[in-house]
């Protein structure tokens, strides 16, 4: 909060900087992994040709 509560006062006093850095690292690693897998999946789908749509056969009279 501007002028009332600074960012430096925000961190939990019970956790060390190492614990906080590790948790941020875990999150970063998780999201980077998910992002890479997502990109590979999207690229794979983008390269697949669209399914062939067959025209309905006109009914014989």
């Amino acid at each position, binding site marked *: 909060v501007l002028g009332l509560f600074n960012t430096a006062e925000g961190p*939990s*006093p*019970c*956790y060390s900087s190492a*614990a906080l850095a590790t*948790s941020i690292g*875990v*999150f970063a690693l*998780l999201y980077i992994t*998910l992002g890479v*897998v997502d990109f590979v*999946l999207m690229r794979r*789908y983008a390269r697949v040709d669209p399914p062939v749509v067959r025209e309905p056969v006109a009914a014989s009279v």
Partner: protein
Amino acid sequence: MTLAILWFWLIAVLWGGYFVLEGFDFGVGMLLGVVGRDEEERSTMLESIGPFWDGNEVWLVVAAGATFAAFPAWYATMFSGFYLALLAILVLLIVRVVSFEWRERHEGHRWRTTWRRAHTVAAVGAPFVWGVALANLVHGVPLSSSGDFTGDVLDLFSGYTLLAGVAVVALFAFHGAVFLTLRMRGALHDRAAATARRLSVPAVVLVAAALVWTVGVAVERNQRGVLGPAVPAAIGTGVLALAAGWARTGRSGRAFVMTALAAALWVGTIFTALYPRVLVSHPGFENSLTVANAASAHYALVVITVVAAVFTPIVALYQAWTYRVLRARVGGEQPAG
């Protein structure tokens, strides 16, 4: 009744809704490798919760949001003190969500098996940590006079809180197995019913032991009388025993109502054991956070009460309608006629 007390019980209701609804989602996830024999059957099992699971998670989001709005001091201390536990839950929930979406994106056996296993690990891990975390509210954590958590992550683990975590896993596994008997057809239904029968006794024993211990912890650490928390604990144990009986005789509908009630009464016991505190301090009981000293200002409570009164019925009706529209069984042979 003040608005702060009303919101304490509303938050209990939200947690109860989350345990009832997401409980069977977690249970189905735990049983993917037990009830399903191949990846096609496991896909069918996931279809049974596919339309519901994300809506069910909203109850958790609302419970956390309501805690933030109504009891900011409770929210700040709990999310700070339980930070690593909640981080673990967040990672498990993210993995679970991704496994829903990505498992179907590739036909490879290894790919599907990997995501199925990831889903099962998350479905076991998240309820276990929730059980540990909620039990810690009553069991107590070290707090300073200003309400800051002064312990470390190991303070969250004790014999009681570990039993609570295991009991929640057993309860949800049983709840999920009974849910599958309502949603599956054919061989999947038969295997789900057999699994529910096998899980019934361990679930009753573990939940009963954890609830009795909760009453003892409430008396010892929260200065509560026995009667208050003992009533929901006894009813919870009783309805779960009824669920076990009905699951063993094939009355799945009645068994499901009872496992749902047991999940709600688990939360009811925790919150009854907790009241009038919201987070017990141990050691240093005088530092405990209470409904009175952790609540928001009156104006904030009035605003969120009006918002909740307008929108909660709409969301509840919408969710009930979703369940009604998508109530048909899945998998197996279509019944004749």
